[in-house]
């Protein structure tokens, strides 16, 4: 029989959430709403109160105010039973003793540990990356540093044509900065959408004066006196720049859990449908969790970076901790805003899907339905909120469109299915 330390016994109901982003906060709130009987502690490594991440690449970048949009007010946290500890980084997990250690040297016990630490902007690995004037954009500190550098900046190069790079490019154009987007893949947004939507966003950015260079690698970031002056492309072209933004994805913050022998690797922590890791009493949620995904092309495990996914994971863990059975998963959804155009996605478009356009991308509002084995696997809607709304139930049900004509006719609404219970 294992001897149980009385201190350990007392922490059985204590939930420790590491990471105070969207996923961590959503879980803390869900536990409070469910009247969780133990203490809920939320530890975040940023010094400020938990805030909304999506505005960082949008209005906080081009607008008059760069003040973070808090997820909950200071008064909320004062009132809340959640113990919020900001500015503390968890550096080690001891799954035997059920404790974590912070960089400041304090030890915190847990009954359940929920790893919601998100990730950091990926480095591009290019010579010159360390120069002043080179920025990533993942957290509010990054935003503050970038905005400070934009004062007086005339030219910018964005390395990476994904959501972050393109939203940053749009914000910089709004500020009147000349922007070049360099993407190594043959098209923009190649990882997240099909060729039709990629083509639309390429044309949109070009129409706004952005120099879009797809299929182009970067050889080096150039500098003088410690400050970036431009980039040199793979074909030896030099692009002068006052500011360089690197938007080449994120790396999950998982080293402490991997070191504690949770199944996973630098690419993510492996979890099951209820976000349980291979360690007892330890869950992983949000951007850092790799989970079998029924909406992915082959149903394989993957990480999903989105606010919606963070909320779904939080809800799943709140239910698991309360001993409730899991709910059916909802298809992933994403949104992006560029120059006032709204892209809303449900499902995970795959490169081999058949694309059916509803409306002409060259003329404005349109959607693209993605068919996989004849079923609706995903849909991208650009300023067509009704398509986006109806597609959620259709993708969830893996709807088989009986008449391709309806799908391709923008004037004919998608059918309305009764939403599944959530």
């Amino acid at each position, binding site marked *: 029989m294992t001897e149980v330390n009385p201190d350990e016994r007392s922490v059985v109901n204590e939930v420790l959430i590491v990471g105070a982003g969207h996923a961590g906060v959503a879980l803390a*709130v869900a536990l409070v709403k469910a009247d969780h009987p133990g203490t809920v502690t939320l530890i975040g490594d940023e010094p400020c109160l938990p805030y909304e991440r999506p*505005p960082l690449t949008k209005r906080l970048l081009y607008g008059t105010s760069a003040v973070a949009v808090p997820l909950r*007010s200071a008064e909320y946290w004062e009132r809340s039973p959640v113990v919020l500890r900001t500015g503390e980084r968890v550096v080690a997990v001891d799954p035997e003793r059920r404790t974590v250690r912070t960089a400041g040297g304090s030890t915190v016990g847990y009954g359940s540990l929920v790893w919601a630490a998100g990730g950091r902007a990926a480095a591009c690995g290019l010579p010159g990356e360390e120069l002043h004037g080179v920025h990533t954009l993942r957290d509010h500190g990054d935003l503050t540093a970038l905005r400070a550098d934009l004062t007086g900046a005339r030219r910018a190069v964005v390395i990476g044509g994904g959501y972050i790079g393109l939203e940053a490019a749009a914000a910089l154009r709004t500020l009147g900065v000349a922007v070049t987007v360099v993407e190594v893949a043959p098209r923009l947004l190649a990882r997240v959408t099909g060729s039709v939507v990629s083509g639309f966003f390429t044309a949109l950015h070009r129409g706004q004066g952005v120099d879009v260079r797809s299929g182009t690698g970067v050889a080096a970031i150039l500098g003088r006196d410690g400050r970036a002056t431009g980039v040199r492309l793979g074909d030896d072209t030099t692009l002068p720049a006052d500011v360089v933004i690197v938007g080449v994805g994120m790396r999950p913050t998982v080293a402490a859990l991997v070191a504690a022998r949770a199944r996973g690797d630098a690419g993510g922590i492996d979890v099951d449908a209820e976000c349980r890791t291979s360690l007892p009493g330890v869950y992983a949620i949000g951007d850092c969790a790799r989970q079998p995904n029924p909406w992915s092309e082959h149903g394989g495990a993957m990480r999903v970076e989105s606010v*919606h996914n963070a909320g779904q994971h939080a809800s799943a863990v709140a239910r698991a901790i309360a001993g409730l059975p899991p709910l059916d998963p909802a298809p992933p*959804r994403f949104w992006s805003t560029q120059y006032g155009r709204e892209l809303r996605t449900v499902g995970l478009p795959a490169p081999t899907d058949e694309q059916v356009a509803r409306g002409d991308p060259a003329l404005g509002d349109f959607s693209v339905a993605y068919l996989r084995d004849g079923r609706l696997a995903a849909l991208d809607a650009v300023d067509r*909120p009704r398509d986006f709304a109806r597609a959620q139930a259709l993708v969830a049900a893996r709807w088989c469109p009986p008449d391709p004509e309806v799908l391709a006719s923008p004037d004919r609404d998608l059918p309305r299915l009764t939403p599944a219970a959530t």
Partner: protein
Amino acid sequence: MKTVTFVVDGVDRVLDATGHANLMQVAVENDIPTIEGECGGDMTCGTCHVYLESTPEGYDAPRGADEEDMLEVVEAPTEASRLACQLPVDESVGGLRLRVPT
């Protein structure tokens, strides 16, 4: 006082809406069950579905077309369904009454 009432499981929760832009924010700040406000008020998530029970005189916030579309994704929509993020907190909001889904 901009007092609004959220009916939760048949019980009135009377809240002061002062300082908030809309009723989704009021609900989120007060841990009202079922109201998540996941998209921050962009009408992309449908997680702030409420049933409007009564509006004070002079309170004018009709349903928009985008809101109608999003209300299709919520569970058990009725004629009274609204997205709380589309119900602004203004001078005439005091006395508004709504019910959250259970």
